[in-house]
């Protein structure tokens, strides 16, 4: 059970290889990686800055992870989320869940990212050719969260 909130870039592959290793009871690992896109709603994105609420962010991510572990029999969970400025193509977030069976791993991973999207205090600010703009919350993210209520 690990939560990391960091400004530094991370290598999703290296994290996932470590996550998969060392426990032969794990039969399935499900992961999701969110990356900075170079386009958003038809506009070019040159860079993105993620603002967050230090302290509350960690607290919320730990709550989300604890909730996933209450709901599914998980051997391991991992959440890494960056803040600060990043460029298109860079990973923003990695969530991973490991279980003896794939159903639990997949559902827990989907739950983690859906729940994180709507409750971890992060705010995206994009820079593009017309200057900067704050990204609006999406109704589809709220809908994805409600699947788990």
């Amino acid at each position, binding site marked *: 059970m690990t939560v990391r909130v960091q400004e530094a870039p991370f290598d999703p592959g290296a994290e996932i290889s470590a996550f998969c290793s060392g426990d032969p009871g794990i039969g399935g690992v499900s992961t999701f990686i969110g990356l900075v896109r170079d386009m958003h709603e038809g506009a070019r994105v040159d860079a993105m800055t993620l603002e*967050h609420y230090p302290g*509350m962010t960690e607290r919320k991510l730990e709550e989300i992870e604890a909730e996933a572990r209450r709901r599914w029999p998980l051997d391991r969970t991992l959440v890494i*989320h960056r803040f600060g400025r990043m460029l298109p193509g860079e990973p923003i977030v990695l969530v991973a869940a490991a279980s003896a069976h794939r159903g639990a791993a997949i559902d827990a991973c989907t739950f983690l990212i859906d729940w994180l999207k709507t*409750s971890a205090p*992060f*705010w*995206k600010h994009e820079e593009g050719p017309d200057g900067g703009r*704050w990204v609006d*919350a999406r109704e589809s993210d709220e809908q994805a969260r409600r699947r788990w209520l």
Partner: protein
Amino acid sequence: MKIRYFAWLRQRTGCSQEEVDPPPDVTTVAALMEWVGRRHPRFAEACAAKGVVRCAINQEYVERDATVAASDEVAFFPPVTGG
């Protein structure tokens, strides 16, 4: 009382956090938002739009009717957009 502002609400108040001492009748989030709106007119504009200003007390999400105390850390921010 410590108030923190995030994202574009921070840009509207012009500060990321401030120590304030609201009058004793400011006991709820709703009342605090009104009071803060008088200090920062552009914050009041944002509050007029429904569902746009979210609040946390001591790093837990709360609704408008939650009670605020002088020792609290209160935060105002727009809906979150991480992940």
